[in-house]
């Protein structure tokens, strides 16, 4: 029997809801004793410290932590009980930045971004800025959760939105285990609806990508191999098509860190990450080409640093004072969670990096 997933770490008053506690765990134990090298040490050893940004390519905006799901692995600790939602005022500040940024990609995430009451207005306005690639990270089930969301696939199409959706496995059991009972069936239905209006079809400009992240304490396998399996299984069983599979490593923070500790997998997982450290992946990690903006308008090197409360090491810390040139002249803040992005073929919100 699947467990019912209902509450975030915040709601449960877990100590792991606190960013400082997570950072403390990641800095102590096997990293403090020197059993494993810290990420700083590893970058120093490979002559890549400090980590510096390259050209800004992606603006990732987190419009709120509220979500209709409570997934096991969620680094945001999102859920229905999270009330952090970006206001229209902050969205207006974001729009000013979107109009003048040199970034070619706008990436809206959450929580379920669709649950922000100003989501449609924001997408409508942002799409006028002429950004080349406009991504919305949709968990799929939100599209089937309430009648008021049923027309979202068409809304996405009308705004040429690139839909990126989580799908941890092509089987019901593994998907529901990670994301909750009934998620698989709703996700399949939502994918079929997106396909029906042209999303994910070969040669279609309506981009539909799926995000895979492991359901347990192991790293993702080869992205191309997994994509092949996903495409075959989803098409044979459900007639579903999509463009790319993005394989993402679970970073040891928030609910995944909670799982690692509770299941006594934490040390083994950190060993896996450190042993899989790939210096070549460092050059392309997403923090080198991305700025993450929180629901309150604070600026971060990535969405993970946002959840750990690690604001950018720059005088420019808020969207209201945004200056791209000045912001790009900074050192990226790192800790042991960063090993998650440099393991094997690397990992980012855009999937493998090499």
């Amino acid at each position, binding site marked *: 029997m699947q467990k019912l997933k209902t509450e975030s770490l915040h709601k449960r008053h877990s100590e792991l809801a606190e960013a400082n506690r997570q950072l403390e765990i990641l800095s102590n134990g096997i990293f403090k004793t020197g059993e494993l090298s810290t990420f700083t040490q590893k970058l120093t050893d490979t002559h890549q410290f400090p980590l510096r940004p390259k050209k800004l390519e992606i603006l990732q905006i987190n419009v709120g932590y509220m979500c209709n799901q409570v997934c096991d692995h969620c680094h945001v600790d999102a859920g229905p009980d999270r009330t952090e939602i970006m206001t229209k005022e902050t969205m207006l500040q974001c729009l000013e930045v979107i109009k003048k940024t040199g970034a070619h990609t706008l990436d809206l995430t959450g929580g379920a971004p669709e649950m922000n009451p100003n989501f449609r207005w924001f997408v409508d306005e942002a799409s006028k800025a002429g950004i080349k690639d406009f991504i919305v990270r949709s968990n799929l089930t939100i599209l089937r959760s309430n009648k008021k969301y049923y027309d979202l696939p068409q809304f996405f199409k009308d705004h040429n939105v690139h839909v990126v959706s989580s799908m941890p*496995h092509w089987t019901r*059991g593994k998907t529901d285990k990670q994301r909750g009972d009934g998620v698989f069936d709703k996700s399949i239905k939502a994918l079929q609806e997106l396909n029906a209006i042209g999303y994910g079809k070969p040669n279609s400009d309506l981009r539909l990508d799926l995000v895979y992240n492991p359901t347990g304490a*192991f790293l993702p396998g080869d992205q191309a*191999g997994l994509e092949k*399996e996903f495409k075959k299984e989803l098409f044979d069983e459900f007639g579903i098509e999509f463009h790319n599979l993005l394989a993402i490593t679970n970073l040891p923070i928030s609910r995944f860190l909670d799982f690692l500790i509770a299941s006594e997998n934490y040390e083994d997982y950190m060993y896996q990450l450190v042993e899989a450290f790939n210096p070549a992946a460092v050059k392309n990690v997403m923090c080198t080409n991305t700025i993450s903006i929180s629901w309150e308008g604070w600026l971060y090197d990535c969405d993970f640093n946002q959840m750990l409360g690690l604001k950018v090491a720059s005088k420019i810390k808020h969207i209201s004072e945004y200056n791209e040139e000045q912001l790009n002249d900074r050192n990226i803040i790192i800790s042991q969670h960063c090993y998650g992005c440099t393991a094997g073929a690397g990992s980012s919100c855009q999937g493998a990096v090499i």
Partner: protein
Amino acid sequence: MAANNYYDPADLKNFGKITEWSEELGTKFFDYYSKVFEDGALTAREKSLIALAVSHTEQCPYCIDAYTKDTLQRGVTKEQMMEAIHVGAAIKSGATLVHGTMMMNKVNKLDG
């Protein structure tokens, strides 16, 4: 060696160190090993499942540890993993039972 065990999970991390005591042979082995598991006429995923089954017939704890993780990473389901092990088990038991024909031949010759 760990004080009270022949097998220590931590030793798996040191597998690569066998090269230190015989560099040429160790290096050749690992080159061969990694080449074997690349995509070829069989996919790396299929090879991983074969390795999982053989790990069990060889009853190698290190290999079971490694290839359980490897198959999971490749998206293999637990039902597929268990079926692969049954293939190994079927061959193991079949290999035992097929020798029964030797016994039968011998009995027939000796005792009619």
